[in-house]
């Protein structure tokens, strides 16, 4: 099912509200209100993939907290402090991930509308493309190393420095190559054209967007009122 993305303005507002709420609250337990709102917000946008993964993540953290609190579970690697911290920050993770998984074109349209300089918009677009591309390259380097027997445990133990070099050198060189190819592609398609950028995704803020702006403001206000503000 196709995603129904809310306006970027709403997403930024939601992020601001969750950060503000979690920073100011005096009662960490009530942060679940923001998290549940965040999950509902994902469901409304039909971002079901993120909803499932964040739902499972939050459920797992809740289970761990319950075991720590009521059954004396002691965490060796991932300490109790981190469990509580991640549980509290879940709402920020949810709206943050939703923001960064917004189609880059919609982010660019928003930035263009608020008169952000074109080089900044292009930089952002490059960044969004660069990471998945480099992830694929990293996989490819790993595969080549396996093919050539350079990932055998004995080899890695005996030649740790060379092994790091084998990963880093091709990665850095590919990094330069990809950056160059992306730049050429942008320049050949008018990236240096002066003036305001247009946008395929440009859209007006709808009544639904205004509703969600209000929901986030109301929920954050209610949350701070119930949980009290830390002074």
């Amino acid at each position, binding site marked *: 099912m*196709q995603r129904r993305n809310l306006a970027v303005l709403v997403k930024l507002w939601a992020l601001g509200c969750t950060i503000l709420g979690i920073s100011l609250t005096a009662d960490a337990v009530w942060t679940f209100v923001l998290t549940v709102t965040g999950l509902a917000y994902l469901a409304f946008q039909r971002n079901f993939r993120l909803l499932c993964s964040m739902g499972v993540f939050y459920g797992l953290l809740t289970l761990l907290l319950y075991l720590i609190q009521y059954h004396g579970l002691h965490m060796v690697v991932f300490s109790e402090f981190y469990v509580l911290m991640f549980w509290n920050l879940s709402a920020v993770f949810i709206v943050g991930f939703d923001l960064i998984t917004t*189609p*880059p*074109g919609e982010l*660019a349209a928003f930035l*263009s509308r608020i008169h952000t300089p*074109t080089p900044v918009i*292009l930089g952002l*677009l*490059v960044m*969004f*493309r660069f990471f*998945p*591309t480099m992830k*694929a*390259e990293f996989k*490819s*380097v790993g*595969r*080549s*190393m*396996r*093919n*050539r*027997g*350079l990932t055998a445990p004995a080899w890695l133990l005996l030649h740790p420095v060379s092994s790091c*070099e*084998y990963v880093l*050198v*091709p*990665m850095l*060189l*590919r990094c330069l*190559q*990809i950056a160059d*190819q*992306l*730049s*050429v*592609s*942008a*320049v*050949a*398609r*008018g*990236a*240096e*054209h*002066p*003036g*305001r*950028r*247009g*946008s*395929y*995704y*440009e859209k007006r803020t709808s009544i639904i967007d205004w509703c969600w702006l209000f929901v986030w403001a109301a929920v954050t206000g209610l949350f701070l009122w119930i949980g009290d503000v830390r002074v």
Partner: protein
Amino acid sequence: MIRMENVSFHYIDSEEGVSGISLNVRNGECVVLTGPSGGGKTTIMRLLNGLAPSYYPGALTGRIFLNKTPLPQLPLYAVGQQVGSVFQDPRSQFFSSELAGEVAFACENYGLLKDEIRSRTDYAIDALSLDHLRERNLDVLSSGEKQRTAIASVYALRPNIYICDEPTSNLDYEGAEELAVILRRLKAEGCTLVIAEHRLSWLHGIADRFVYVCDGRIRWERNADEMERLSDKQRKEAGLRVVREGETAGVYKGDVLVLREVNETKSDPPAPCSPAAALRVQNLYCRKKGREIFRNISFTAYTGQITAITGRNGAGKTSLALVLSGLWRESGGQIEIGGKKRRAGQRRRQIWFSSNDTGTQFFTNSVTEELLLHSERSEERLERTRELLNDLGLYAYKDAHPTTLSGGQKQRLSIACGVLSDRKILIFDEPTSGLDGGSMNQIADVLRSEAKAGKTILVITHDQELVRCCCDYEMVVFAGQ
């Protein structure tokens, strides 16, 4: 119209460049630049789209006119409005993960109004039959679909000149034919096309003129009829690919070339006089991230033979090679090497896989080091390395850093690494994509000689010339089968 008058250009940081180029491309004409790799075709393309010297700095002499305006005086964005560029590898050109966003990119840069951007983008998507891909991530498209997306992103801006640099180097036969349909359409709309290309047969009926570029100079020009009359000897001397499909390329083994569908339960290909089944695959099945990539693949590869694995882009050929070589695990079925069932880890030690993407395959500081990586340095081995470097035309680059090599040289180095790996079964993925006829023949010779020495070779390829030139059998992989 584009006119180059006695143009010379040399890059600031290398000795490469072109000299004394005079070329006149008329409106609505399709000119194909061909010739050996590294001959200067790409540099001419960069001069025509203004990237040289604006983006690639260097010394330019002579004059280039774009519709009577001196091209070097125009800013790049002004050139971009009239001259659309389609590059070799669309993977690293995309700025969006979505089709519409990518196709609209150029129109957005030129600040067109939203409605205009939408109408042009939708028209381009429709014209290039990409509508069904709107909801899909660009990263998962086949090479042909990616190349069509790249062309649509240029088409949306409606330039009247298209500069295409080896647009079919990653495409299968059908992909190239689809591209031919698009270019025919552009030509019929009155667009001017300049195409740098090694594969020539798909350009039949589109190309008006062929320009042969070698050692940085234009050596000759021929119209389409003259090009078709080129004798086999002349074509081979120039290192050119076949001009018309169906033409023989090298030794045509008509009676032993077997077209087999691997999903069908036909009997195995006729075994040679002294058969030794090196690799036997039974009911192989692969599934990744919930998606079935291929199923029911069964075949046998024999010692001393070269088997071509062909099929459309996205059919699962590379995935099959990754599973065979142990770099991916199979989801079902079994793979036997020398009559014994082998797990992925064991297969990795016995089967070599050379990927089509040579950008991440090399790890050392020189070509020689790369070939000797992980092996003892006996005199015999050094001699063998020298021989192979000579056979593949790489001896002059033995001390060069692998990343400084051209695409074709990297492909040949990858093959050399496989040959020297001492593994009995070698799998090469598209070893001749984007290579001129001369380089293709060098590779075919090495493959034949390795097969003769007792290696079992599987070649994933779209290159029918290579198949005709050196392969004993051809297996066709169909999508999802």
